[in-house]
């Protein structure tokens, strides 16, 4: 691979010393170095191909990300946990109200509350005297299969 390029390039000129003497190798190597170099390099190449015989588990590399993932999951769960349902269950609210409160709120009388099935008949603790006979007759007459005797009994005719 001799240089065949143009000869205009600068030549190193040191005190008239010949190029050959300047290019003489200044460095030394241990005896027989190059004879043994190929087998040593091939040994290194083979060693680099071998997977590590005793791969030590780097627990830190496993635990640190695990803690990180756990922390993220915990934080997400904490912030995204559904808050107590702001819309109360209708049946629960209904059960918590007294018949009077319900009647006042809905502007319905007791018989209307029963007929709309907002309260059951048994829940009515209102003073029956507060109902007129006409109201009782109207209520009972809306119920099917109520015999006339029942109506008579209710209004204590």
């Amino acid at each position: 691979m001799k240089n065949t390029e143009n000869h205009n390039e600068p030549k190193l000129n040191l005190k008239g010393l010949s190029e050959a003497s300047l290019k003489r190798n200044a460095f030394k190597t241990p005896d027989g170095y190059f004879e043994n170099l190929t087998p040593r390099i091939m040994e290194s190449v083979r060693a680099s191909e071998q997977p590590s015989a005793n791969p030590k588990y780097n627990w830190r590399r496993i635990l640190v990300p695990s803690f990180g993932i756990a922390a993220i999951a915990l934080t997400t769960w904490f912030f995204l946990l559904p808050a107590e349902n702001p819309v109360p269950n209708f049946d629960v609210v209904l059960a918590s109200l007294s018949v009077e409160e319900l009647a006042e709120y809905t502007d319905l009388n007791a018989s209307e509350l029963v007929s709309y099935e907002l309260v059951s008949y048994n829940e009515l603790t209102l003073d029956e005297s507060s109902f007129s006979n006409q109201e009782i007759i109207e209520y009972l007459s809306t119920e099917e299969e109520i015999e006339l005797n029942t109506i008579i009994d209710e209004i204590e005719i």
Partner: protein
Amino acid sequence: MTDDQDKDLLKRFRDSSSRNMAFSELVNRYQERLYWHVRRIVIDHDDADDVVQNTFIKAFKNLDRFREDSQLFTWLYRIATNEALTFLKGKRKNIFVSLDDVSHHLSSQLEEDPGLSGDAIQLKLQQAILTLPTKQRLVFNMKYFDEMKYEEIAEVTGTSVGALKASYHHAVKKIEAFVKQPF
């Protein structure tokens, strides 16, 4: 771009049955040239030995990907140069100076190196080379000692031929000026 012998080596390397034998031949063919190239960069023999071994390990792992756009030896030179410079950067960390200032460290190492021949002018020349900036030093070594063509050096360094010529010119002038200084 690769010569016939290299092409044959590469062909056998790609065959798993002859892979190791082919690589062993490749090492045998290029080990000495690469060693001297690396030795001129890192100066110390043991360091050069380590760098050359790493160079061939990397070459073995990447040879399948060598596309033959360049010559095999310039590809190997590129790996060796990168490995040597990486080694020097590691050394820089230990002595807390810039990469070019590593040359002062190497220069003092040069004087103590039992592996250097006792020729005074050789020592002076190597010290002069070590005063050059890293890239100029690489260019000078490849041009002057390895007698590589500018086109080949361009493949190794990724620098234009024009820039390499200018770099070599400056290097020669600096070395002459340094050597003219009294011993």
